[in-house]
């Protein structure tokens, strides 16, 4: 099948890529760009482990074709840090012991990032609702929810 040329911005850098029309965005990120921080837990949009941000929105990269990302700006977990400095969400996940096995963590953080970019002071219920797109088998969710709320506080303080 003929390849399709796309331009995508990933974590602040633009790439020109020739992709198969049926190629999933998650595979392009992981296999071609080596960004394996984005995880695959189910491959059918049920678990949320592959959540990334596209133009600021939380998107499941396993349900997105690479061609759909043409011209768009993607943020993955690897792009969240500023140099050596962790993003407040990353900081809070570490501090609040919200990470156990860590496989759901990048997806959770990216889902939370998109949320906090629109709503800087979400209620606990709203955080739970958003994180309900991200399955976690280890933590019981209380600590990740708390981490997002704490990160929101930090981010509000920094403004």
């Amino acid at each position, binding site marked *: 099948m003929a390849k399709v040329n796309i331009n995508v911005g990933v974590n602040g850098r633009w790439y020109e890529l020739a992709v198969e029309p049926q190629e999933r965005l998650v595979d392009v990120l992981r296999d071609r760009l080596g960004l394996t921080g984005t995880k695959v837990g189910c491959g059918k949009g049920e678990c949320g482990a592959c959540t990334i941000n596209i133009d600021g929105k939380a998107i499941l990269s396993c349900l997105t074709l690479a061609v759909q990302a043409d011209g768009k700006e993607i943020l993955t977990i690897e792009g969240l840090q500023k140099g050596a400095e962790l993003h407040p969400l990353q900081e809070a996940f570490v501090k609040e012991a919200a990470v156990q*096995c860590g496989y759901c963590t990048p997806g959770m953080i990216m889902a939370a990032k998109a949320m906090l970019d629109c709503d800087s002071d979400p209620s606990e219920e709203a955080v739970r609702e958003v994180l309900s797109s991200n399955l976690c088998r280890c933590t019981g969710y209380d600590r990740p929810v708390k981490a997002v709320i704490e990160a929101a506080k930090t981010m509000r303080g920094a403004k």
Partner: protein
Amino acid sequence: MNDELSVVGKSLPRIDAIDKVTGRAKYGIDLKLEGMLHAKIRRSPYPHAKVTKIDTTKAENLPGVRAIVTIEDVPKVVEYWFFLRTEKKKKQMFIHDNVVRFIGDPVLAVAADDEETVEEALSLIDVEYEQLPALFDPLEAMKETEVKIHTEKGNIAFHVTKQYGDVEQGFKDADHIVENRYYTSKQKHASLEPIGSCIADYDPSGRLTVYSSTQLPHWSRMYLAGALDLPINRVRVIKTYTGGAFGGRCGLIHGLEVMSSVLSRKASRPVRMSFTREEDFTATETRHPMIIEMKTGVTKDGILTANSIKLVSDVGGYGTHYIGVIANCLSTGVGLYRCPNVDFDATAVHTNKSLCGAFRGYGNPQMNFAQESQMDMIAQKLDMDPVELRLKNYRGLGEIDPVFNDEIRSDGLKECLQKGAESFGWKEKRSKSSAEGIKRRGVGMAILVHGTGAAKGLPDPASATVMINADGSVNLVTAAADDGQGNRTVLAQICAEELGIGFEKVSVSDTDTDSTPLDGGTHGSRQTYCGGLAVKKAAEEAKKKLLGYASQELNVDDGQLGIKDGVIYDVKNAATTIRVSDLMRKIQIEDMSICEQPIGHAAGVAPAMPGYFGASFAEVEVDTQTGEVRVLKLTGAFDVGKAINPANVQGQITGGGIMGIGWALTEELITKDGNILNDNFTDYRILRASDVPQLDSIIVESNEPTGPFGAKGVGEGTMVGVASAIANAIFDAIGVRMKELCITQEKILEGLRSGAKA
């Protein structure tokens, strides 16, 4: 003794957290090696069949195909490490035949340059089968003599009976007898990283390296050496970051590492194989479904007189841990209550369904569901508070657990019950339960005990090496496998505490069998205790050497020296000090006549397998029109001896709590004619953030005298009593006794219709 702890007892951030929040942590599927091939398994579409012919000609000729391996080429691992103990038993660990025993059983695998070629090659291979009659019902399979799932053993994998006291007399002494049959469901680990990802790299000189998420790096290495007929030192297992295990990676994964290794040997290239979520659900191990008949006798004062347990465990097509799981049913079933007369009869039966293995709790949740439902019925019969009934009967401090003949040396159950009940509001909520209205609320509770480690039943080694560097920093070398629990962080805390140095001074080795000494792996809630004891002992030895040098340097008797915050000091003269870093530089580099790095090493088996206690309290709301059960509150109080890292312990309590709610209400692999019908997260429902009730996690510290800083286990126990407490709460709400898991809306409605009272 614990007053002056400076590292132990603190909720320090885990050592791998930054790797995980930045996406740097590499799990099996994230790894790539130079020249790596991709591989995939073709699986049986039949529940029971003989593979009569495999024609790989067309696939072999497909460009890009590098190796093919079939059922004819590889053995299957069908027992666990207990069988490594003798040559005769070791032979029984591996079977090599052409029979497939469940839908999804591996038949062959292909390695090729890319995944597309693998898929195409798999479709080009012709496989012929001779179908055999299949058995799905364990009770039928037990009786069946013509159809044998395993030729030599038949269908009964294991049968055991044990008697304690005189059960007949015990029932004669009883004023009440409660007798019921319970069914438990086929639960899946559902770790977020699908089970089944590895890279096998068999280099042409005959050395095999396997990157694996196994919970048991050293046992897995021995399994591979046995399966592939290699010396142990020619096999290297490197543990990758692991996305949750819960028992699902307690050994090798059926078909995964062995097939990948043979493919790699044939192709002379590294081979990566990663199962999909569907393969995880349908072709990797699950919790054993059980049928448990329990008859319990009790006096009118609420003293247990007899317990008779008859249990059938559905192993599926292959077993690995089926004997251990039954042994744990015995030890937890007999161990929890001081009942003098017990009969235990258990049978593990093969059926043509997907295989079962280790899963958090290891038989204890199944036993607990039966036992704690019985206790609830007894409390109700006697009109006694269920908490009081437990307090009267549980086996506590100073008593001897008859199964392992071991003394209970630490017991925080009373405190668990008291603090748990208080935090939950047990007394208030109990008095408010009402049987009116459409939505009815009720409360229930359960207690449990779970062993730490396996020292009394299985080979259970732990070892550690502690090396003090020239700048005073420390390398801790251990094969303790961290699947996400945080045990490597806990071991670093124990090491730092023992040495009197800062937590940040300790770094923990990779988990690699080439460079770490023998460890029994991560199972049985054992790493904090068993691994912790080894680390503490190794640190003690390193410290002794360190203080020996300090003694010479400071001219002070080494018995008079202490270390705090990286400074060695004379306890009798606080002015006499030397920094560990200054001393170490001197000993290791400056003084060229010494040049010694103090190293401590410890290896061996823990002296006990202390039971850790817990109590779960649940409040539910049952909708009598729809049958929907909502858990409103779940309180878990656990006696962990000493919480080395309280945040980690709480993480286990809340995580195990919601896994328990799932097992109680939503999680069941549904099989029809051997097919698993719900192989995805939409149809197999684990809890999401919005489903979670108010979770209380309470830590009780009873100070286990044999444990490192008083610690014992916690991980598995946290889910053990949850379903029991929920079923009891449902009874309290609607007066219907649920004896079958999982408790679906249909079962609630059916129960309400038929008035299935206890």
